[in-house]
């Protein structure tokens, strides 16, 4: 594989260099210690019951959902943005986003796994959940969307995007040798780096992005529906819940991407790969997202205050002037400070990387507080009846388990950055040289047949799984006709997604 003519830089991938003793302590030892503490805390939770957390019964002044669900939404939001950035880069041919595509894809896979861990930590019977959900998941429940679409399908699709986008670099890593070269060889098997192959990759990713882009909106909305559809829970119920969640997901995702890109730019020398204009453009996107969110927040608040329904007003009061006011005003302050930073940069038509990173981190703080304000106050104050109002702050068990989960993410991210080019090589070296690829008509036909077969088969399987799970036209409160039909549905959709990989990996002959 050769890089384009005119490039003088020797082919070197951008990946984390060997880290010194301090780096090892910060990036490896501390996360490992936190993971150990998290495992201990989770063991306590399993041994003594969820009573060791600070979550309590709704109606007893407590919140039955707390930190775990907050971060489940947070992580899924990160994943949604990761997928949006990756698919957006291919769909709308936004060249500036391409260097960030791999970070976005890996972030999506990782975040979805972490989100799954948060959900499992929240369950009263996690093992039962692992067994019963695949068997009986009900389409009627908004959880069905989160379980099947987000966690199952989201991981599959992000993996395919990551796989397709990383094959070229995997081939390079395999040639470079090292202890993991066998992994790279599997990843890149059949890859030749020819023009036609690149074209096939591009086509596959384009179509995948095309189908996947609306999927993110639908899938993430189902998470909004978990709250927004609850007519009996003032403070949750509302049509704006899903869109405003989607916007906050965008804010936190873009913010985190900016922060990671800033670190890569500054400390790992990714100047060529991630030019300053990427920060400028993403900064502007972030500015727009924050403005839209503030608009939605204003609309929501005005509607609640104007209607003045007792229970909804109780929640709104608790949030703006009551026990949750510090979280609310801090969230607003963080958003306004970030907006200020980004707006000044927008006016100056400049991006200062350090400030952009700060803005990216601040909006993530705001997004976490927003998750808290969505999940908690409606449970402690949103009662139609005269139950006492309460309060929730996470206990040490929840915090320790969550830090353990986040540490798993940090470790995985560092390991990935260490082992694989985190910015695609083509972002540095441009298009690869034209290499002719003779391909027989038979092979072309075989590729088409296999791809179409797996796509149609997957869609059919998905439809059958959905029909068996949903029992359309019958009683809505029944079990799936066949146990595990939700798995059939997921398998179908995953198979459809993997048809993109089939299209790419069939060798030219």
């Amino acid at each position, binding site marked *: 594989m050769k890089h384009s003519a005119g490039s003088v830089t020797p082919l070197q991938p951008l990946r984390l260099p060997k880290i010194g003793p301090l780096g090892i302590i910060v990036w490896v030892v501390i996360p490992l210690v936190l993971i150990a503490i998290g495992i201990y805390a989770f063991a306590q939770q399993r041994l003594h019951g969820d009573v060791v957390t600070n979550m309590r019964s709704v109606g007893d002044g407590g919140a039955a959902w707390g930190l775990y669900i907050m971060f489940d939404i947070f992580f899924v939001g990160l994943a949604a943005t990761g997928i949006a950035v990756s698919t957006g880069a291919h769909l709308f041919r936004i060249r500036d986003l391409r260097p960030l595509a791999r970070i976005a894809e890996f972030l999506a896979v990782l975040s979805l796994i972490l989100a799954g861990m948060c959900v499992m930590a929240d369950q009263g019977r996690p093992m039962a959940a692992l067994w019963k959900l695949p068997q009986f*998941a009900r389409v009627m429940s908004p959880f069905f969307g989160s379980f099947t679409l987000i966690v199952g399908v989201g991981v599959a699709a992000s993996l395919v995007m990551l796989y397709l986008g990383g094959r070229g670099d995997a081939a390079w890593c395999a040639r470079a040798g090292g202890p993991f070269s066998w992994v790279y060889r599997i990843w890149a098997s059949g890859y030749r780096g020819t023009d036609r192959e690149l074209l096939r990759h591009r086509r596959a990713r384009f179509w995948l992005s095309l189908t996947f882009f609306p999927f993110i909106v639908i899938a993430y909305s189902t998470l909004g529906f978990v709250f927004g559809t609850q007519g009996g829970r003032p403070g949750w119920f509302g049509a704006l819940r899903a869109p405003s969640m989607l916007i906050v997901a965008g804010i936190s995702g873009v913010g985190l991407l900016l922060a990671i890109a800033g670190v890569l730019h500054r400390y790992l020398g990714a100047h060529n790969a991630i030019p300053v204009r990427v920060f400028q453009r993403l900064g502007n996107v972030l500015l727009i997202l924050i403005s839209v969110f503030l608009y939605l927040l204003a609309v929501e608040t005005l509607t609640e205050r104007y209607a003045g329904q007792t229970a909804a007003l109780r929640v709104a009061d608790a949030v703006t002037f009551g026990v949750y006011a510090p979280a609310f005003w801090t969230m607003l302050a963080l958003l306004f400070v970030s907006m200020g930073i980004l707006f000044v940069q927008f006016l100056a038509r400049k991006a200062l990387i350090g400030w952009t990173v700060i803005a990216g981190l601040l909006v993530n703080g705001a997004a976490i507080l927003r998750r808290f304000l969505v999940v908690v106050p409606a449970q402690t104050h949103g009662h139609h009846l005269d139950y006492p109002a309460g309060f929730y702050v996470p206990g040490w068990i929840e915090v320790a388990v969550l830090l353990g989960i986040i540490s798993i993410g940090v470790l995985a991210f560092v390991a990935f950055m260490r082992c694989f080019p985190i910015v695609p090589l083509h972002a540095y070296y441009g298009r690869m040289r034209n290499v002719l690829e003779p391909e027989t008509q038979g092979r072309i036909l075989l590729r088409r047949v296999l791809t179409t077969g797996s796509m149609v088969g997957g869609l059919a399987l998905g439809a059958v799984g959905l029909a068996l799970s949903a029992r359309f036209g019958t009683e809505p409160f029944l079990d799936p006709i066949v146990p595990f039909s939700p798995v059939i549905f997921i398998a179908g959709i995953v198979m459809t997604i993997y048809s993109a990989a089939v299209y790419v990996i069939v060798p030219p002959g």
Partner: protein
Amino acid sequence: MSKNKRSTRRGMMAAFMSRIVDRVTRRTSKALAQPSDSEELLSVERKWGMAIDLDLCNGCGACVVSCRSENNVPTSGPEEENKGTTMEWMSLLPHHKEGSGDGELPVELLPMPCFHCENPPCVKVCPVNATYVNEEGLVAQIWDRCIGCRYCTVACPYDRRVFNWKHTDWPETYRNFLNPDVALRPEGVVEKCTFCHHRLRKLKETAALEERPMHDGELETMTACAEACPAVAIVFGDLNDPDSRVSRMTRSPRASRLHEHLGTKPKVSYLAKDRKSR
């Protein structure tokens, strides 16, 4: 010798097969038999509901205690109260009244079971069908299937579901007094009032054995809370039977259901205090 052995084996097989055939035919004929009169009477479409007369209720809490002991609900003391882990299927909720008249307390106590809503938000959201509406309209719970996600608890507008935050260690002395008809729930699942479903089943079985329909009189105090209420403020029965006491109470001008605007259609009605009778 071998012939003998074979014939013994054949004999055993024949005996075995004839026993199986006998059992299968007996079961099939039972299943195919025409329903008896009592079965027909029992299969009448029911809609179980409850009416609670607040004019009669004196807030003694007998319903709460009897529900607890009938359904093996773990006892809760000040510790659980402070921790917010109280387990109650039937609670007395202080309800602030608007415009209470002279000499009346501004607060009344509402006995609160699960309302077995006709359009239950708790059932809609359950991801694994661990809670469902059974053929008699009761909102039932499968303890063993519940994964403890607590979605139903946050979806119930009346906060009538409780989560098992911890494992209950029943003291040895209590164990002998646990109700064998009601399963003990494991830690990590959600539970709620079942309208004493096990008692209803027993009542049905008795009626079927005696080949008679269930009487409204025996249904009225069927649930443990209704049975224990000294003021006869709680009445259970079939809302589909226009002559049942519960139906008549539900039709009273004093009757209303909590937060009907939510569209949950609760099957428990409250009869407001009768000012004239005071």
